[in-house]
């Protein structure tokens, strides 16, 4: 159960949770599009992207600490780029000198913009993932004509990922309980066998799952009950979202 924290969050109830997944997908994609397309020299414009994000976070009642931790987890990828920007972007005025390296204001600005973009997009994606059950998210994507094969692969991945994690956990426990020193060379020697075994078990399981699907009349198409409902609140959120950003663009122009 420990690996399903996102599911616990998405099972909560709040006005954001209750929105149709399509509304949230549209808003998230549009938001990310706006954030990454704001020119780098318009930091003020980027600042206007923060209020809607804070509003969504506040209304959804999601734990802030969890979000910040997740962002930290992803930050190493961006951090490496952020560190190099001030030294490599030779635009604007020189603001400092670190040994033989020169730091320029243009580079600092670029770093700041990149960090802001990173935070905004990651937070938006996390809010979407944490307020929408995965099955509903897939259904929403299906409505947007994402290929069914892709949806099916994602659906199975989500369904069996935890089964696989549990299976590998059990194998690891079985190995450790028969190893005098867990984590030593013996563990390393056992790794290829375990990976192979996990593959074979997964392959066998896929056979059994396919049999179970056939037994219930599977003919190549996965059918689900259509149960997405577009409410007044969805229309209001979409209209509010569009109005806010149109206003921001007009004012900032």
């Amino acid at each position, binding site marked *: 159960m420990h690996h399903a924290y996102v599911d616990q969050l998405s099972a909560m109830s709040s006005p954001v949770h209750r929105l149709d997944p399509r509304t949230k997908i549209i808003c998230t994609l549009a938001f990310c599009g706006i954030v990454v397309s704001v020119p780098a020299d318009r930091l003020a414009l980027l600042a206007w992207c923060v209020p809607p994000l804070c509003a969504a976070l506040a209304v959804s009642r999601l734990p802030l600490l969890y979000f910040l931790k997740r962002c930290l987890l992803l930050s190493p990828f961006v951090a490496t780029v952020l560190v190099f920007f001030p030294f490599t972007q030779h635009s604007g005025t020189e603001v400092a000198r670190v040994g033989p390296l020169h730091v320029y204001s243009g580079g600092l600005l670029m770093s700041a913009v990149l960090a802001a973009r990173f935070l905004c997009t990651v937070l938006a994606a996390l809010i979407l993932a944490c307020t929408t059950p*995965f*099955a509903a998210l897939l259904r929403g994507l299906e409505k947007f004509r994402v290929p069914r094969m892709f949806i099916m692969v994602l659906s199975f991945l989500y*369904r069996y990922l935890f089964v696989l994690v549990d299976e590998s956990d059990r194998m690891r426990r079985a190995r450790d309980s028969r190893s005098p020193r867990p984590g030593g060379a013996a563990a390393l020697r056992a790794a290829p066998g375990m990976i192979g075994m996990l593959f074979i078990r997964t392959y066998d399981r896929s056979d*059994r799952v396919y049999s*179970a699907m056939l*037994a*219930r*009349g599977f003919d190549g198409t996965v*059918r689900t009950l259509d149960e997405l409902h577009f409410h007044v609140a969805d229309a209001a959120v979409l209209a509010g979202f569009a109005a806010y950003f149109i206003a921001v663009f007009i004012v900032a122009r």
Partner: protein
Amino acid sequence: MQHIVSLNGLKHSYHDGTAALRGISVQIAAGERVAIIGPNGAGKTTLLLHLNGILQATAGTIEICGRKLDRASVAELRPKVGIVFQNADDQLFMPTVLDDVAFGPLNMGLAPDEVSRRVTEALGDVGLAGFERKAPYHLSGGEKKAVAIATVLSMSPEILVLDEPTGSLDHRARRRLIRLLTSLPHTLITATHDLRMVAEVCHRVIILDGGKLAADGPAASILADAKLLEAHGLESPGS
């Protein structure tokens, strides 16, 4: 008497040449509750997988509800035979309980309203009303098994086939399952090692050993025959 399942000289060999079934002939009447018991590797699961055409017989014939099961009739006969697999994680492959229980009826081409009605009814029958939105891996072993049964009940099968239904269930979940199985009106065929469950649920017992029929008779007399059970690697439920 009208036989709902009729196996005649059923043989099956796997690709590697292992002969799993060596000529099984069995007739089962509508409403009967039959247990197939036997040691590991006796061919119990292989036999069950033939009942809705997942495995094809190497020789012999299968009749379900009076019709021969073959390529032409398999799509029509499959909804009549609901198979519940041994491992519920294999049976429950959709992201939510609702999607899983609706999977079979939707494949049968039923209207969404009818599907919803059947889902609600099937979950109610197994005592899990209100579980629609749950993800299968959040459920306990007993709940998973109950949902697995609901996934076939929603197809309104005439024959319910269960592979090791009580395996890995705790006492309470097992009790609940036994109560459920005895309350269902379906023809029931179950492969199991749980002979105490057999004594409570089934009218008739078939012993399979080495792919052959070793015994077939009323549950009470077969389960009381300690010698017969021991000869086929089984233990009398009374001992």
